[in-house]
């Protein structure tokens, strides 16, 4: 994709993202497009769009307290992500690992890395090439919910697959 096309696709996506994405870390992510269908390219109804991936496939999996093992629900979401990534080979992704605020800063950074890695390993086991998947841990630095109860904590203990761009220049 040429640079201009990428910039336009980015512009279109960021409008959608502003409406639907409550994960601030994803806002700055440089989405690729890969949109190539009759449906409005890049719209959530375009099954090849990152917005579709985020909203319909599901971009995140949740974890129990202090755990990085994948629940059956998490595995189902990741299976959907793997299918999508295999069908859309132009995309690469960064998997962000997060923790709730119950824990020290250092331990939570390490725990977030475990969670991101668990998601990455699962995607690889389902056929996604490892070189398309990077990980980063934010520890407890980027909660999406800010109350201090299990309601919020359960949503903050997450691994989010953020599409960061196309493998094609």
């Amino acid at each position, binding site marked *: 994709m040429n640079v201009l096309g990428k910039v336009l696709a980015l512009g279109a996506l960021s409008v959608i993202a502003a409406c639907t994405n409550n994960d601030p870390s994803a806002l700055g992510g440089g989405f690729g497009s890969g949109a190539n269908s009759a449906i409005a390219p890049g719209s959530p109804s375009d099954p090849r769009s990152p917005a579709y991936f985020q909203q319909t496939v599901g971009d995140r999996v949740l974890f129990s307290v202090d755990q990085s093992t994948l629940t059956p629900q998490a595995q189902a979401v990741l299976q959907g992500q793997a299918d999508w990534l295999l069908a859309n080979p132009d995309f690469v992704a960064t998997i962000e690992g997060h923790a709730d605020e119950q824990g*020290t*800063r*250092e331990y939570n950074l390490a*725990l977030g*890395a475990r969670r991101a890695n668990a998601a990455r390993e699962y995607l690889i086991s389902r056929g996604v090439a490892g070189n398309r998947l990077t*990980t980063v*841990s*934010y520890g407890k630095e980027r909660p999406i919910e*800010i109350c*201090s109860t299990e309601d919020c904590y359960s949503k903050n203990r997450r691994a989010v697959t953020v599409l960061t761009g196309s493998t094609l220049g």
Partner: protein
Amino acid sequence: MMRFLTSLLLGLTILTAPVNAQDGPLRLELDQGIIEPLPFAVPNFVPDSAAAAQYANDISRVVAADLTGTGLFREISSDAFISRVSSFDAPVQFADWKAINADALVTGAVNVSGNRLTVRFRVWDVFSGQELGNGLQFAGTTEGWRRMAHKVSDQVYSRITGEGGYFDSRVAFVSESGPKDQRLKRLAIMDYDGANVQYLTDSAAIVLAPRFSPTGDRLLYTSYETGQPRIYVLDVDRVRRTELNTPGGTMSFSPRFSPDGRSIVYSLIQGGNTDLWKMDLASGQSVRLTNTPAIETAPSYSPDGSQIVFESDRSGTPQLYIMPANGGEATRISFGQGRYGTPVWSPRGDLIAFTKQNKGRFHIGVMRTDGSEERLLTSSFLDEGPTWSPNGRVIMFTRETQGASGRATLYSVDISGRNLRPVRTPDGGSDPSWGPLQN
């Protein structure tokens, strides 16, 4: 900055014939469980000119605030004074100070000549009518007046307690603003008491956990400026930072200097697993210190550099371990209920401060290096990340309040568990690192 620091102390002069401070009858023994603060008076230092008057007043106030802030001393208000001190060299009217129950008296004088400031002071044991130690004179520039006040306070503290002070020191920390889900973090440095805040980074990238070098000239910290958490070293005076080249593995964090300042120990994440590594700063070469599938992080050297205390969840929950500085077998030292993290070896070598999480509460605590005599000093929704004062008597840490409006604030507490108090910063504050006493 450089000029200010190097030119602060142009001279230090002893004003009287030596008197052995150890012989002074006035002595506060810090290990005796002090309950009643020692009453002292600091009459305004005597200015030699109109230009010196404001400095004299400000320096006296900072000295009084330093001493009061320890919780070990209680200032007697000037409203109660019977004597006025109008000349530094005039004989002290001890009866007037005894009458208002001042145990200690600090007298001083301030001279200003152009940009040059000179502070003289004496510490008196009121009841014996004797001077504690020698009168001293500090000379420097007017802009360094606060540091000179802290130097006076360090002398007063030392002479009365027999231990080193901690007032002429700085704290590096993370300045925080904005709500929890959009928090902006900047690296900052300030005097130990919250004065003279300077920002060392902007808030474009998340920054975490600055750590002072043993001499205070550099800071290690973690920044997300590349998108991944990585370790940087910052020259404090030049405010110039360098990324450290850690081996394969994209994320590195939780760095700390060795006592000789030549190497660092840190956490490196590879394949989702966090281990401890050590880097020689001159060569940039790293060697692995731990190799387990567990999380190993928050390392801290013993003051002699021979051992490292760290946190690992190899037992199933985060606990504290000690291993030789070059790696090898680790010994678990924490066995109480709950989860332990962020161990920090005290500068005296006798204690390890830590964060403890138990039954939904967080605590800052201390234990001996073999894990015995654990004492919890604080309790709140979220306390973490202790750092030691240069004399090993006070711990500063982060306290975060709960809920959507939760905010991080720096606090300090005496190792006795007394004198818990917030440290004022312009915005929120977290991850303090208490630097050494300055020269």
